[in-house]
């Protein structure tokens, strides 16, 4: 349960957003839509406390996240718009690194399976800088399943993906929501998932 209370953010005295109130219950999937430059990406970062809010509070499971930020992070996966894989490392090394960071319970076999569903198996030992745009995006999205966290926060996850991958991602979303997970994502594309709450952010 994530509760966002009167969140505001200013940059150089310009309002980016003001008094945002959002509440995300378990099993809820929420999409933020809005014009370019309306502050969606910034909002996600402020929610994650990567950028400090100007005012307002965020509660995770009833507790202010600032009290124990790592407790909050511990249950959150953030897939940003940028690529976070190291370009010089192979796909396998990157996955291994993420796995180590998140105490993931998945073993090597699971990971191979995962790579298989995302059609990345043959690139296992390729440096990520040689992957195509969509393939890198898929590699990033792998973290969702790898880290097994409860709260997923994603910035434009559908970019670059081909139709098959979009379907897989949608299915992943649905599964997560059915398992009482919480999803918050921004996108200009409307995925065909039932019961998406849309926040219009303008």
């Amino acid at each position, binding site marked *: 349960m994530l509760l966002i209370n009167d969140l505001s953010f200013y940059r150089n005295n310009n309002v980016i957003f003001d008094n945002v109130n959002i509440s995300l219950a378990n099993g809820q999937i929420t999409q933020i839509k809005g014009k370019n430059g309306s502050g969606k990406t910034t909002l996600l970062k402020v929610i994650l406390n990567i950028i400090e809010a100007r005012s307002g509070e965020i509660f995770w499971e009833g507790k202010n996240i600032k009290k124990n930020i790592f407790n909050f992070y511990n249950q*959150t996966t*953030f897939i940003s718009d940028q690529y*976070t894989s*190291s370009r*010089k490392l192979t796909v396998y090394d990157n996955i291994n*690194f993420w796995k*180590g*960071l998140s105490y993931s319970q998945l073993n090597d076999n699971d990971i191979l399976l995962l790579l298989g569903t995302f059609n990345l198996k043959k690139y296992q030992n390729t440096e990520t800088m040689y992957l195509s745009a969509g393939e890198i995006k898929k590699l990033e999205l792998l973290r969702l399943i790898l880290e097994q966290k409860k709260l997923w926060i994603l910035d434009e996850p559908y970019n670059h993906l081909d139709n098959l991958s979009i379907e897989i991602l949608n299915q992943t979303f649905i599964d997560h929501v059915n398992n009482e997970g919480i999803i918050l994502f921004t996108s200009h594309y409307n995925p065909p998932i039932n019961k998406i709450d849309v926040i219009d952010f303008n």
Partner: protein
Amino acid sequence: MFFIIKIFVFFRRESKLFFTNITDLFSNIVFFFLSIFIFVFALGTDEQLLKTIGVGIIWSLLLLSSILSLRKFYEEDFNNGILVIIHMSGISYELLVFLKIISHFLFVQLPFLISLPIVSIFFNLPTNEVYNLIITFFIGSLILSCLGSISASMNLLNKTNFSLGGIVVLLFSIPLIIFSVGINNAESELIYLINLLIGIALIFLGIAPWSSAAFIKLAISNK
């Protein structure tokens, strides 16, 4: 226990990034040797002269080489946004900086240590000076790594200007140079000077994490 795994994973990644192949390590050292050649050519090959200024040259070049490797610190991870991912996995920025300093020390600075005895031959340095050089370099390069971290994180804020960070390193390493070169000229009091050097290293190990972390946080929130 889990935390140790995390730190281990961190170092494994760092080492892979530094040594994607062995040439990397090697070319750093070649670079160092070549720049010493340059100096020898520029200053003339008078043997007595070389002996006098040998330690000084070696130190200054180590300093400059470590400025060259500044960008290995944070730049790429910052641009990738992976610093944030690491942070979100439960490692505070201060600890992150500390780990980065250690890995820079291990993977960039220490390989130079290997090359020191060879370089000393070029300058005909007496054995005890080589010995002192290695000890001071060991401590000094830790200080250089701290300084490097500070200025690399400062450079994240100002991407146009690469010199700015370099200036910080140079500025604060002046006392370091005075001490380290001084050690080789001092007749007695070696222990005293080395203690001083260790003191400086500890001070910088205290300052670097929080100041680098502050710069990094600032850079991330303004990216």
